[in-house]
């Protein structure tokens, strides 16, 4: 069998941003089945395979060919309609709470003219689904959904052909409805299962099939409820951490005393003496496995390990450290001359903005259940990159990827924080040593400490503006946090955008919207400073410099709903606004805060967010993504920050790392701009980016204090 090439040439690879530090290296994969094998697994019926882009050539249908066929190189998804009519869709995307299971189901239901509950999505199981780079970058909606539209549209057309042939009628007279084809008079009906019965039809497609125009959507564009919601409100759904296997042991890892610490000596006698406890020492991994978690916890605590700790940078000196260790700047964009722009300015401003490390805190910590059977490894784990984790496991154990299966049950959130397979590799190592299936669930403290953080950053901005409000010069230098959203939607004649990598004291990686939050915070705060210095209205000032109408429209929509300019804030209250663009979505947030200088209490009272991500697929779930992004963003904007000293986190618990709670939640108003004529963009990330600067701008409006460091008010704002 030909080994498929890694997906080096797809758009996806080009879109991986600099700060996805956790994703270094090419995905390598080998698809374990040829198509006939695959069909053997599925049984008869109709199989439509979606191919990515130009490598796809239309392949003939009519299965049961004896010859060996080359595997399609870049398969994105496939859809199978079984002889019993069961509709299954296979995709490498993972469900982590963003409700992509629902929105992708809608895409298929739309094209098959069939209710969503008749469709089953098989997601993120590396033995069953095509390769997928991962569920990140807001790509499921713009990339996977169109693929599924095409695949399902192709299936629909093939089913129409089958019915037309069977009845010897013109296919144009037939209708697809409720998992069947109906004739012109509505008298005759053949279900999908009846149409595919006794056949083995295979079709591989790329751009041939025409999906339903957005204007004709009946199921997409509507608020279909979470497809398996009942399993969640009844507690029936099994997350990885809920799973078990016969004979399974529960593991616990004995962690180093500090980042980068090396093991000097171990005394595990007491643990080894406990009944049913195995102590595993495998290279740098020190762990125990026991019959239940209480025993495992007790055994781990009984192990006395000595660690060698090296001195490390603390959070107190973080920003100096990032500047000090900065590598030479990469220029990402250069236009005109900064010197000329500053020379022509009436007002110049130079400011520095800071962003702290924060943690994702997915409520389900990393977890894995690993089992070795006849040299083959199966791991259930909560990850956004099942194939990436499969590669990690194959490399860790020096085995071919077709000996590893990774299965991702719908997972207790990710937010960009679950791109890696730490728990999977650990569980597999312990399972191998113990000779039994092993489940490992990280504690909250482990999740805080040993997962990766959103990068901290220092951002220096130097600008010039004329008295009429035209920005003439814009120099923007980000240290460490990353490049996402580093250029705004503003037309500035003289611009230089730079990024410097640094030596990060903490392990860092992707977080919802990446560095876009940091870069928007600096940019939209700085623009607000310029507007105030010029005594211009912040909305008018932005409009003067914006080059993009969709950006203008979301700002107008947010301002309008908020009542911007209609009234003055009450005493102690302030209004702020900011706009943003990320992952082909446009957002603007208008915020009202109250600041009590006597108690220091800062409360976000109201957030109005306007969002445009093209054609809306599921209005209710989209609204929920926007609300979720705003609520998550509140924490990073106001109070979240990882504190650390000499290789140890100082606040790795929910009692000392504050996340937003019910009493922190403002009144949320969300305006969705549904652009039926624009492709649907993903929505998980963009809506978070304008919140922090809008809050900072509102705090300035309330108090006259300009805050330039995120989190803005970890200890309130007194005095």
């Amino acid at each position: 069998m030909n080994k498929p090439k890694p997906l080096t040439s797809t758009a996806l690879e080009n879109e991986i941003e600099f700060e996805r530090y956790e994703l270094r290296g090419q995905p390598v994969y080998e698809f374990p089945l040829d198509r006939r094998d695959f069909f053997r697994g599925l049984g008869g019926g109709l199989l439509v395979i979606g191919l990515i882009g130009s490598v796809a050539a239309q392949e003939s249908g009519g299965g049961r060919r004896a010859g060996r066929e080359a595997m399609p190189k870049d398969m994105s998804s496939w859809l199978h309609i079984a002889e019993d009519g069961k509709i299954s869709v296979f995709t490498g995307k993972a469900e982590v709470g963003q409700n992509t299971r629902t929105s992708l189901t809608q895409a298929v239901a739309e094209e098959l003219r069939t209710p969503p509950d008749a469709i089953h999505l098989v997601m993120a199981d590396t033995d069953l689904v095509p390769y997928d780079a991962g569920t990140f970058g807001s790509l499921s909606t713009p990339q996977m959904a169109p693929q599924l539209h095409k695949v399902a549209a192709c299936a629909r057309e093939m089913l129409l052909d089958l019915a037309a042939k069977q009845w010897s009628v013109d296919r144009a007279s037939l209708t697809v409805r409720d998992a069947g084809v109906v004739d012109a008079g509505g008298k005759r009906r053949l279900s999908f299962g009846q149409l595919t019965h006794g056949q083995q039809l295979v079709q591989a497609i790329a751009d041939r099939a025409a999906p339903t125009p957005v204007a004709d959507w009946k199921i997409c564009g509507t608020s279909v409820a979470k497809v398996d919601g009942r399993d969640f409100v009844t507690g029936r759904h099994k997350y990885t951490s809920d799973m078990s296997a016969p004979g399974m042991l529960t593991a616990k890892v004995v962690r180093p005393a500090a980042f980068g610490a090396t093991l000097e000596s171990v005394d595990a006698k007491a643990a080894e003496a406990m009944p049913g406890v195995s102590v595993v020492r495998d290279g740098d991994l020190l762990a125990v496995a026991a019959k239940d978690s209480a025993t495992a916890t007790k055994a781990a605590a009984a192990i006395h390990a000595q660690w060698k700790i090296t001195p490390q940078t603390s959070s107190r000196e973080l920003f100096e450290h990032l500047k000090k260790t900065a590598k030479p700047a990469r220029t990402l964009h250069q236009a005109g001359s900064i010197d000329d722009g500053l020379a022509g300015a009436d007002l110049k401003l130079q400011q520095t903005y800071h962003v702290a490390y924060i943690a994702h805190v997915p409520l389900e910590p990393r977890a894995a259940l690993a089992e070795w059977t006849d040299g083959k490894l199966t791991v259930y784990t909560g990850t956004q990159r099942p194939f990436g984790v499969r590669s990690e496991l194959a490399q860790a154990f020096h085995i071919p990827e077709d000996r590893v299966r990774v299965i991702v049950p719908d997972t207790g959130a990710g937010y960009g924080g679950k791109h890696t397979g730490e728990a999977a590799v650990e569980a597999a190592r312990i399972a191998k040593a113990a000779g039994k299936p092993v489940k490992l669930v990280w504690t909250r403290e482990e999740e805080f400490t040993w997962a990766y953080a959103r990068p901290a950053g220092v951002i220096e901005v130097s600008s010039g503006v004329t008295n009429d409000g035209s920005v003439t010069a814009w120099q923007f230098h980000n240290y460490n946090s990353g490049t996402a959203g580093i250029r705004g939607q503003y037309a500035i004649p003289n611009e230089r955008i730079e990024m410097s990598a640094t030596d990060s004291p903490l392990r860092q990686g992707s977080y919802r919207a990446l560095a876009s939050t940091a870069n928007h915070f600096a940019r939209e705060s700085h623009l607000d400073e310029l507007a105030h210095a010029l005594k211009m209205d912040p909305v008018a000032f932005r409009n003067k410099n914006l080059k993009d109408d969709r950006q203008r429209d979301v700002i107008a929509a947010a301002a309008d709903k908020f009542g911007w300019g209609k009234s003055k804030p009450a005493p102690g209250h302030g209004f702020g606004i900011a706009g943003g663009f990320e992952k082909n979505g446009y957002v603007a947030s208008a915020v009202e805060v109250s600041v009590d200088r006597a108690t220091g209490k800062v409360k976000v009272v109201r957030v109005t967010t306007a969002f445009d991500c093209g054609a809306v697929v599921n209005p209710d779930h989209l609204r929920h993504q926007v609300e979720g992004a705003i609520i998550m963003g509140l924490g990073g904007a106001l109070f979240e920050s990882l504190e650390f000293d000499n290789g140890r986190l100082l606040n790795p618990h929910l009692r000392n790392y504050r996340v937003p709670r019910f009493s922190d939640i403002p009144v949320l108003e969300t305006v969705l701009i549904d652009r039926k004529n624009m492709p649907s963009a993903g929505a998980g990330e963009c809506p978070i980016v304008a919140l922090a600067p809008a809050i900072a701008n509102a705090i300035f409006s309330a108090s006259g204090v300009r805050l330039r460091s995120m989190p803005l008010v970890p200890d309130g704002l007194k005095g």
Partner: protein
Amino acid sequence: MAIELTVNGSTRRLDGDPDSSLLTGIREQLGLTGAKYGCGEGQCGACTVLIDGRATRSCITPLSYASGKRVTTIEGLERNGRLHPMQEAFLETGAMQCAYCTSGMILSGVALLNKNPNPSEAEIVRGMEGNVCRCGTHPRVVAAVRMAASRSKGGAK
């Protein structure tokens, strides 16, 4: 060492150290995995169960405390295939994303209505303050509790 307690209406036995947590007992011995581990220190509410009708953080509740008591988990709310009004309300308002917090939210909501069948919005916020959701479902959770309150005469047991 073993304790006896009533779980979702049935008498059950849990073995183990009396200081070990009720959460691991019900999850690992009874297979009732609806209550989740989220923080292990009673800060997030994902492990919430009802003990004699009151919301209790099972991750910091020792087995010895639960001995002889009446425990209700998320699995015990459904009756004869019919969802509890709070479960219905969570579904109708779509008050979940990843839903890892949902069992705890629902049981905290049930306990809140047990104490106060007609809570104000501020009382709902106060009553739910101990439950963390990272996906940001809070406004919908408040709406769900309000909906359940308006439909139920009183709370559930």
